[in-house]
C-alpha cells in the first residue's frame, strides 16, 4: 500500500521532470507564441512539483524541503513515470508526450482533488484547472499536426509511436490508477479520431520508473537540472 509520501513524491517527480523537459524548448519553439505556451505549461508543472515535493518532505519528516528533494536526490531515488523523462525530440514528439500525459494527469488530479488527505486534495484542486488547459492545448496540436500536412502527420505518428510504450506504466495497478484507463482511452481515441490518426496498436509496456528503474535519459536531465546545487550547495543570489 502506497503511503502519502510515496504518492506525493511520484506526483511531484512527474511534474518536475516534465517541467524541466519542457523548459528546454524555451527560445527554441517553432513560433514565439508556442515558445510562451510551452514555457507557461512548464512553469505550471514546476509549481505543482514544488507543492507535491514540499508535502512529501513534510510527510517524510527528515527535514528535506522541496529543493532538497528536487536537487539532491540521485537518479535511482526518482519516482517519476518513464513517459515524462523521454526526450523532447521534434515538436510533434513533445506534443505526443504532453497529450498522453496531460490527459492522464487531468483525470488523476480530478481524483486527487477528492482525496481524503486535505493537503493532497488542495494541490489537486489547484492543479486540475492548469492541467485541463495543458490537455486541451496538446490535444488541439495533435489534431492540427495529425490532420495537417504529410510531413506533420508523419511526425505526429512517429511521436506517438515513440511514447506509446510508456502508457501502461501510468495505469499500473500497483499505483491504484488502473481505474482511470477507460476514461483516458476514450479521450485519447476521440482526439486521435479527430486527427484522423489510428490509435497505436498494443505493445509491451515498459515499467519501472516508480521503482527507480529509469531510462538513460533521466541521468542526463538531472545532470543539467541539479548542476548548480551540486556545485554550489545552497547558493543564492
Amino acid at each position, binding site marked *: 500500500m502506497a503511503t502519502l509520501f510515496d504518492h506525493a513524491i511520484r506526483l511531484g517527480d512527474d511534474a518536475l521532470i516534465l517541467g524541466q523537459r519542457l523548459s528546454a524548448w524555451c527560445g*527554441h519553439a*517553432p*513560433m*514565439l*507564441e*508556442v515558445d*510562451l*505556451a510551452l514555457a*507557461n505549461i512548464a512553469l505550471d508543472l514546476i509549481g505543482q512539483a514544488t507543492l507535491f515535493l514540499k508535502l512529501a518532505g513534510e510527510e517524510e519528516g527528515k527535514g528535506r524541503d522541496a529543493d532538497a528533494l528536487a536537487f539532491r536526490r540521485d537518479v535511482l531515488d526518482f519516482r517519476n513515470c518513464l513517459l515524462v523523462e523521454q526526450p523532447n525530440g521534434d515538436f510533434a514528439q513533445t506534443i505526443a508526450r504532453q497529450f498522453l500525459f496531460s490527459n492522464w494527469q487531468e483525470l488523476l488530479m480530478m481524483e486527487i482533488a477528492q482525496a481524503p488527505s486535505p493537503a493532497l486534495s488542495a494541490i489537486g484542486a489547484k492543479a486540475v484547472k492548469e492541467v485541463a488547459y495543458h490537455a*486541451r*492545448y496538446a490535444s*488541439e496540436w495533435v489534431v*492540427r499536426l495529425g490532420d495537417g500536412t504529410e510531413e506533420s502527420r508523419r511526425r505526429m505518428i512517429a511521436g506517438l509511436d515513440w511514447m506509446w510504450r510508456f502508457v501502461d506504466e501510468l495505469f499500473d495497478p500497483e499505483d491504484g490508477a488502473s481505474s482511470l484507463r477507460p476514461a483516458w482511452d476514450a479521450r485519447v481515441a476521440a482526439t486521435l479520431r479527430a486527427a484522423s490518426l489510428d490509435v497505436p496498436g498494443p505493445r509491451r509496456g515498459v515499467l519501472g520508473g516508480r521503482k527507480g528503474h529509469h531510462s538513460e535519459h533521466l541521468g542526463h536531465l538531472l545532470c543539467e537540472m541539479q548542476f548548480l546545487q551540486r556545485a554550489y550547495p545552497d547558493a543564492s543570489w
Partner: protein
Amino acid sequence: MSKASKGEGPAREWPLWEVFVRAKNGLSHKHAGSVHAADARMALEAARDTYTRRMEGVSLWVVPSSAITASDPGEGAALFEPAADKIYRHPTFYTIPDGVKNI
C-alpha cells in the same frame, strides 16, 4: 526558429490576429496586442498565454488583423482636427460624485 519566422514570404507565416482583453466585468475589451496563429482557437490560446498570464483579464476576443479597416494617416487633418476647438463636447462641466471610478 522555423522557416516561417525567417521571413520566407507571407505565405509561410501564420496570419496575424488582434487581441482584445476585458480586464474585469463591466469594462470594455481593450486592444492588448497581436499574435500569430493558424486558426481562431489557436489565436485564443496564444492570446491567453501571451496577454493574460498575470491575471490581466476575464475575457478575450481575437480578430483577424485583415478584418480591420484602418483610417488613413494622410486624412488625419480632415478626420480629427475639426474636433480640436469644440471643447463643449467634453463633459467637463459635470462634477463626478466621489466613489465613481468608471464613467
